[in-house]
């Protein structure tokens, strides 16, 4: 187990290193001069040169990279070329918002997917199972931002039950926070739940075929009770993997959904930065998202071993 953790940690470290080079190289080294990009085509040579000196862009790329990575690790990625504002606090602020969104969406997805997927598996081949399977297939075909727009149309515009967007921090006004969180979280969560339920279904179908489950049923347990007592833990191994891998999709989905609901999270920060040609900010947000994906994959991999003892010694 320890060896596995160490090997995985090594892979994680290597992946982080390589992706930091990719992100840095892509956005800082390729396109020429970030100072010129930030100031626009009409900038004078003097102002470009001044900005270059101010942000240390006149140093070698190697020095800039080391500086940047050091800044990212210590939580101080410097100041934006465009707004001159500190990037670190912005990141921390926006990250909280996105985390709330992603966490609640994950919760909604699991709440939908576990019962729906299990039911699809148990009712496999029967009409109710087919109906659910069809619904999940439809859910998979709807992107989260489309679900968001449809939810706004129904619950905000027509029924006027919930606000169509915006954001209030939970400490300021918990009730408003929940009201504003509901629709974007649903938009992300329902779609993700549809995807997840299909994996739950096939995992449960696999488990239902196992001998130990037949034994449990022969003992007199109903198939649902047998599943609950013996099967779920085994079915969870592939499901947890998918859930982890989905987190990448969810983070990216959040970028788009934040735009739909005008939620000031990482996605909005990123898109605004792109619109303002604020390369350093783009770089920082992209790196944060990539790190999040890589770290989650690492954790999922370890969880995998916890859930499936056979893998601990593999």
């Amino acid at each position, binding site marked *: 187990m320890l060896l596995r953790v160490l090997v995985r940690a090594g*892979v994680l470290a*290597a*992946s982080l290193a*390589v*992706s930091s080079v*990719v*992100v840095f190289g*892509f*956005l800082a080294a*390729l*396109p020429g001069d970030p100072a010129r990009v930030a100031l626009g085509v009409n900038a004078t040579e003097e102002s470009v040169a001044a900005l270059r000196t101010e942000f240390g862009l006149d140093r070698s790329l190697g020095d800039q990279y080391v500086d940047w990575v050091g800044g990212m690790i210590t939580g101080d990625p410097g100041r934006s070329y465009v707004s001159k504002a500190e990037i670190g606090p912005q990141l921390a602020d926006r990250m909280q918002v996105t985390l709330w969104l992603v966490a609640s969406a994950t919760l909604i997805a699991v709440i939908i997917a576990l019962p729906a997927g299990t039911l699809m598996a148990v009712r496999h081949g029967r009409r109710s199972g087919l109906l659910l399977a069809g619904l999940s*297939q*439809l859910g*998979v*075909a*709807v*992107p*989260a*931002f*489309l679900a968001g*727009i*449809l939810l*706004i*149309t129904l619950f905000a*515009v027509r029924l006027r039950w919930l606000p*169509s967007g915006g954001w209030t921090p939970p400490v300021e006004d918990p009730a408003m926070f929940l009201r504003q969180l509901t629709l974007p979280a649903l938009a992300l969560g329902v*779609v*993700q739940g549809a*995807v997840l339920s*299909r*994996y739950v279904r*096939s995992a449960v*179908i*696999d488990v239902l075929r196992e001998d130990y489950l037949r034994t449990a049923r022969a003992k007199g347990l109903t198939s649902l009770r047998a599943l609950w007592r013996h099967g779920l833990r085994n079915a969870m191994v592939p499901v947890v*993997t*998918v859930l982890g*891998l*989905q987190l*990448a*999709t969810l983070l*990216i*989905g959040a*970028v*788009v959904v934040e*735009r*739909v609901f005008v939620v000031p999270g990482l996605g909005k920060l*990123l*898109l605004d*930065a*792109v619109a303002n*040609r604020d*390369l350093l900010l*783009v770089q920082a947000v*992209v790196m944060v*998202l*990539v790190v999040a*994906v*890589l770290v989650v*994959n690492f954790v999922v991999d370890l969880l995998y071993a916890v859930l499936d003892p056979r893998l601990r010694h593999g």
Partner: protein
Amino acid sequence: MVDPALPTPSSPVVHRGDVAGVGRRHNPSLVAGALLVALVVVVALVSFVWTPYAPSRVDTSSRLLGLSAEHWLGTDKFGRDVASQIMVGARTTIFVGVIAVGVAAVVGVPLGVLAAMGPRWLGQLVMRTSDLVLAFPALLLAIMFGAVYGSSTLTAMVAIGIATIPSFARVTRAGALQVLSREYVLAARVAGRRRLAIAVRHVLPNVSSLVIVQVSVSFAIAVLAEAALSFLGLGTPLTTPSWGRMLQESQELLSVAPRLAVVPGVAIAVAVLGFNLLGDGLRDRYDPKLERAS
């Protein structure tokens, strides 16, 4: 939004001849998927020769009209015909999908074969690299390209293409490894055939069904990614009609004309559903032993 690399079929290598007869059994996913995909493709093709109106024709006297005989799906805030825009949008969707998935398959399939047949370190390198690419989803890549080169249809296609390479490499590698353990490959090796010949004669034909399934599934993901990118204004330019952009423009008018959101929304869902069902159906057809995994 399904991760394409996940459901690796357990026993994928089947000669087409082996499943003759079995493949022709009742397969509703295949039929429904093929019909939906055909619908989108036909609409896209027809748009080359005919649309009810010029898709970008602005007509201020007929803004925000409802459904009618003149405008089947109504008009938008500029008086443009929604049906015509949907038709041309189908073209954009298919075009981006074909190029993106094509790039991914052309790069990913040889990489997968190489990873299976080459030296161990090469296989490891390909797999670790594809893990890494998976940490850069299409949207992030498109944002990075957009920030550097400015957004265009090309950056969208390249971003979606690169993000899709790993799934082709993984699926191909998994299939190729199975083929390589077969007796006929062993026989070919013993007979002194070179690796390249084995790859071309035995491996590629036997992983082709897997690759075809992957093409269909990836196409669905590409459609979703393209819609998201043009929704964010990171894909096709303003002048080209696309479903994602139509959705984005609809958002300010949800209280007046929710139809403007529903119509492109349905178009996206139909295309994605079609390619997903087609992928499921093909998977069943090529490998009848396999329970539909996703």
